């Protein structure tokens, strides 16, 4: 690897000058250009504020629901409007509030807690935010077109197919939410890489703040848990737009396939919502006790096991659908067992209380509220895991009570604790303790008044999702009380908003580390600087601010650490080994740019146009989006040089090896893509199993073309490996040729697979449709491989790639190998279908 010392020009920023100060390099764009900021603090705050706005909107919808139910036979909302209101309440809360706001906190806090100057892929984060914003706007805009989705947040088929939901309301949900989910999935990959690759020197995995563990596991869960819903939504949208019969029992489809895909996502989803909030509790509680979290190892083990176990519980949402007794028993037992890792965390929190004298502040009040409410919610969850009880309580208000106990107790209360706790960090001022207590008690009393007796309401026979109920069954007073309670809860939230706005002007200014916390985000005086650290200090313990005299003893700027010197006038942070945390590279970070926003906007236009059936506009949007990605990625490589990071570390910039952050991101993305493929394979195997007679009617794949496709896949695999070897050896011309070979192999794979199932009619049977859907997905990956190879070749051909700058080909090789294996798997399935017979 030869060192190239000439700084190259870099799109979107000024040409690097070695003597710029850190403040100048990291200056925030002002005026309208502020929207091009890629700083994690700015983007994180955007997620938080936007998420809170959706919380208020969805909360208002909840008040409409409760007002309609205040008396029996109420005519405040007619049935149609009520169905839209409760659907949107659930949809907004689950997709546009809960995960984005927690993501926002993660994006805001993780780099500072871990000792990084920014997130590892700042432009990706900006892109994710705009996808979320535009997706959310698309979903909300459905109200303006009187086409708000009204099929429930879970959108069961066949109610949401064209036959029973004509019009575009379901399409708003399917397309808008899928678009917003892109934000969650990109954030997941980003956080995985950021936590693994960008930590302070010496911060091994076991020295990470516990919040980082929670977010890491959550990110993995998102990467694997969201794909089933994405696939399900795409299949349902394809059913609505193209008539593909995935869920139609008359041709071998199954409405339960939707339920399986949805709940494969839906159950991990609620843990994805709970875990970051529990991580906040695990961070806030030790601060106010003044001692570290007790049982760190237990908690980490519990969180990891919860991540795994949560994927094995989904069918407990389907106990009444006629599952076989064996399935019922297995899922029931597994669902009760998840109480164990949950209990470990709760008792670890309780044990931490005993470590010292806790201080009662507003955040601690909310933590105590979390304890009470979430534990009760968890207990009713265990009740629901019992199948005979579930057969009475499912789809009744008992479940409504349970889910609000775990979601509001397990997420909203910790969130409010986090608001009060990190408000000084975000705004520089303290919120009011006095008003905070009022907010807490109003919310706590209001919440319990609303939801506690709902357990009884459900057990008295009131089903869910009913716009009205007849008088005299025994539900009247319970509903009246629940509604009055909801107004009290709303008053608490309103008071919080008042306090927040008030404190922006009149709040007491926060000093440095006002709560005397131990994690590194409090190192600097609040709201000081946009780049987190003048020098990134090495850490030896989990609470550096408590144990390291280097930290709080002096001015934050003077803390010793690495990366104090600016290199080439560029933004950068330290990159580390994923496990040990020792520095291994310097990670170059981008400067503010509008490209991700433009790309997200192009995709938004494409998605909105699809809803409006303006397909040419949609295609134009996709092309524009592709263009946006191309411009985004077309930048000089930073690899191939080494720089002095300080403290004796001389490190490569953007190193080219498996531990490179870009490579780990590629692997993370492959994880998501394999989860997507896995969901499609699940659908294939499920339909084949449930309706074997229709499977037999599906035309078998052509043996010759299947074989050829597997051969092509093998060739692609080998070409990819050669491509990497050649590129890393800096044989630029040969690498270009290999790129072209990869392109040809991708085309060959696509063609062979398509020809293999050319005789299968996608409208003939559900299995046939799913085979084509699988092909479509693999073809999409092949297209991405092709485009990427083309891109890499173009960069080399135009002379923009020098020696030691083979990271793009390095990553392409991994991606192409992954795609090749997808081709092999798909070919293998087709082969099995032909040889073994489809019946």
């Amino acid at each position, binding site marked *: 690897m030869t060192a190239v010392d000439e700084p190259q020009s870099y799109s979107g920023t000024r040409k690097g000058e070695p003597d710029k100060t850190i403040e100048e390099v990291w200056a925030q764009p002002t005026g309208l250009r502020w929207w091009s900021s890629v700083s994690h603090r700015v983007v994180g705050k955007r997620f938080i504020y936007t998420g809170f706005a959706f919380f208020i909107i969805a909360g208002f919808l909840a008040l409409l629901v409760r007002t309609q139910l205040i008396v029996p036979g109420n005519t405040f909302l007619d049935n149609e409007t009520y169905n839209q209101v409760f659907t949107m309440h659930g949809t907004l809360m689950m997709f546009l509030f809960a995960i984005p706001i927690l993501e926002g906190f993660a994006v805001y806090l993780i780099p500072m807690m871990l000792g990084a100057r920014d997130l590892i892929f700042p432009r990706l984060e900006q892109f994710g935010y705009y996808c979320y914003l535009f997706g959310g706007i698309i979903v909300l805009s459905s109200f303006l077109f009187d086409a708000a989705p009204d099929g429930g947040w879970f959108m069961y088929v066949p109610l949401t197919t064209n036959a*029973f939901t004509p019009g575009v309301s379901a399409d708003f949900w399917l397309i808008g939410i899928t678009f917003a989910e892109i934000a969650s999935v990109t954030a997941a990959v980003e956080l995985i890489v950021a936590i693994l690759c960008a930590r302070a020197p010496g911060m091994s995995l076991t020295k990470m703040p516990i919040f980082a563990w929670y977010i890491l596991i959550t990110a993995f869960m998102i990467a694997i848990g969201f794909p089933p819903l994405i696939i399900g939504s795409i299949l349902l949208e394809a059913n609505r737009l193209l008539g593909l019969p995935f869920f139609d029992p008359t041709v071998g489809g*199954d*409405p339960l396939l939707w339920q399986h895909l949805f709940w494969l996502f839906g159950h991990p989803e609620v843990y994805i919502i709970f875990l970051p909030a529990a991580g906040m509790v695990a961070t806030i509680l030790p601060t106010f006790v003044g001692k570290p979290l007790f049982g760190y190892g237990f908690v980490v083990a519990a969180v990891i096991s919860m991540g795994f176990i949560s994927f094995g519980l989904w069918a407990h949402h389907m106990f009444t659908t006629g599952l076989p007794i064996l399935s019922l028993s297995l899922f029931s037992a597994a669902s009760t067992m998840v109480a164990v890792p949950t209990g470990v965390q*709760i008792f670890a929190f309780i044990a931490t209380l*005993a*470590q010292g004298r*806790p201080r009662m502040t507003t955040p601690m009040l909310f933590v105590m509220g979390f304890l009470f409410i979430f534990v009760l919610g968890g207990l009713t969850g265990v009740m629901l895991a019992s199948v005979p009880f579930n057969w009475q309580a499912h789809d009744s208000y008992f479940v409504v009570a349970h889910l609000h106990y775990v979601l509001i107790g397990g997420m909203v209360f910790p969130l409010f604790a986090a608001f009060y706790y990190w408000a000084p960090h975000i705004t520089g001022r303290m919120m009011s303790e006095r008003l905070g207590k009022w907010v807490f008690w109003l919310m706590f009393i209001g919440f319990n008044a609303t939801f506690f007796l709902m357990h009884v309401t459900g057990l008295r026979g009131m089903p*869910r999702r009913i716009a009205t109920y007849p*008088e005299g069954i025994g539900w009247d007073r319970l509903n009246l009380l629940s509604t009055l309670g909801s107004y009290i809860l709303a008053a608490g939230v309103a008071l919080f908003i008042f306090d927040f706005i008030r404190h922006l002007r009149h709040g007491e200014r926060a000093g440095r580390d006002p709560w005397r916390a131990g994690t590194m985000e409090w190192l600097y005086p609040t709201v000081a600087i946009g780049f987190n650290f003048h020098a990134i200090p090495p850490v030896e313990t989990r609470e550096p601010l408590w144990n390291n005299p280097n930290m709080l003893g002096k001015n934050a700027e003077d803390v010793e650490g690495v990366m104090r010197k600016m290199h080439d006038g560029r933004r950068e942070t330290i990159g580390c080994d994923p496990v040990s945390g020792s520095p291994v590279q310097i990670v170059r970070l981008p400067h503010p740019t509008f490209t991700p926003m433009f790309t997200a906007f192009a995709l938004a236009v494409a998605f909105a146009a699809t809803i409006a059936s303006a397909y040419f506009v949609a295609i134009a949007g996709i092309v524009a989006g592709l263009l946006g990605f191309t411009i985004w990625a077309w930048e000089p490589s930073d690899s191939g040089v080494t720089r002095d990071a300080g403290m004796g570390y001389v490190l490569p910039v953007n190193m080219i090896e498996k531990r490179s952050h870009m490579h780990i991101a590629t692997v993370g993305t492959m994880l998501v893509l394999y989860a997507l493929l896995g969901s499609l394979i699940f659908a294939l195997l499920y339909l084949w199993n449930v309706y074997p007679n229709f499977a037999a009617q599906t035309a078998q794949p052509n043996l010759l073309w299947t074989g050829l496709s597997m051969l092509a896949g093998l060739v692609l695999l080998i070409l990819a490996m050669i491509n990497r070897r050649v590129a890393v050896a800096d044989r630029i011309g040969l690498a270009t040729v290999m790129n072209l070979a990869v392109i040809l192999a991708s085309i060959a794979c696509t063609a062979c697979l398509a020809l293999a199932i050319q005789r299968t009619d996608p409208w003939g049977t559900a299995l046939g449709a799913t085979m084509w859907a699988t092909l479509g997905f693999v073809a999409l990956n092949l297209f991405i491989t092709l485009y990427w190879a083309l891109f890499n070749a173009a960069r080399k051909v135009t002379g923009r790639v020098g020696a030691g700058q083979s990271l793009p080909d390095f990553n392409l090789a991994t991606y192409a190998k992954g795609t090749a294996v997808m081709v092999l798997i798909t070919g293998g399935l087709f082969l099995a279908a032909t040889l073994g017979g489809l019946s």
Partner: protein
Amino acid sequence: MGSTLDQFGSQTTFADAGIGAARTVWLTNSMSIISLVILAFVMLVALFAWRSTGGGRVWWIIGGGIVFPLITLSVLTVASATTLRSITGEAQPEAPVIEITAYQYWWDVVHHSEGRSLRDANEIVLPLNMAVTLQLKSNDVIHSFWVPSVSGKMDMIPGRINELTITATKEGRFRGQCAEFCGLSHPLMAFEVLVLPVEEYAAYLESLDEDARDAVTPQQRRGKEVFLTSGCTACHAVNGVSENGRLGPDLSRVGARASLGAGMWRMNKGNLAGWIADVGDMKPGAQMPSYNDLSGPDLRAVAAWLESLK
């Protein structure tokens, strides 16, 4: 204040009118009490921990988080599994079969007895203390069959037949309701369960096999005439009067039911007249058109005739 529906009986799960409900309610009650006790215990431990400064102990985590849950959850799993077994029991090949198909927004009921298929709608009559197999189907979207006082629920999914074995142990009327969101009038899709002693149940089946009651008064005769000539027969069947309508509920015994519109309104002439004249207002999304062009006397006549079909 009494209810217009108070003649329908209970809709609560805290009942023992059926084996399913009875054997589940003890589980409900015991789990509820134990949950509240555990909650109180956890809060007390937290309070104790708050006031203590001696440091946490590993055995709290292992005891409270692992051992205690494992023990209680194992007990719960065994209790649930045994309850489930006792409810679902062994297959009863001799049990009468009732095929119930859910539509948006009513219930088609067919009793299979001695080789006959006897059709009724919206009211499910069950024999006392005899196990009955319900075959639950759906004609359009997913619905769910739930009569809380008698049994747990089971979904009705298009393309599938879900079987639910139900044994009613108390005489009387009970109210059930669709428990899976099925569209615009999901809140208005309920049904009645009437539990009769076995002899009366047999008599009921006989009545389904016979022709519907004759029209006696001139007004009833006029009503029957209007029924035959206004297009009602395209969807509705009445034994001995019109046999072909299967798109809507069977009306042979409509007057004998306690409720109209699938468990939602009292069965009387007033509601019948309002229903026929403007069903779209009472039950939005119902497939039945509103017959608002009948003359006043004709409307009254049809309502009177239908009410007489007991």
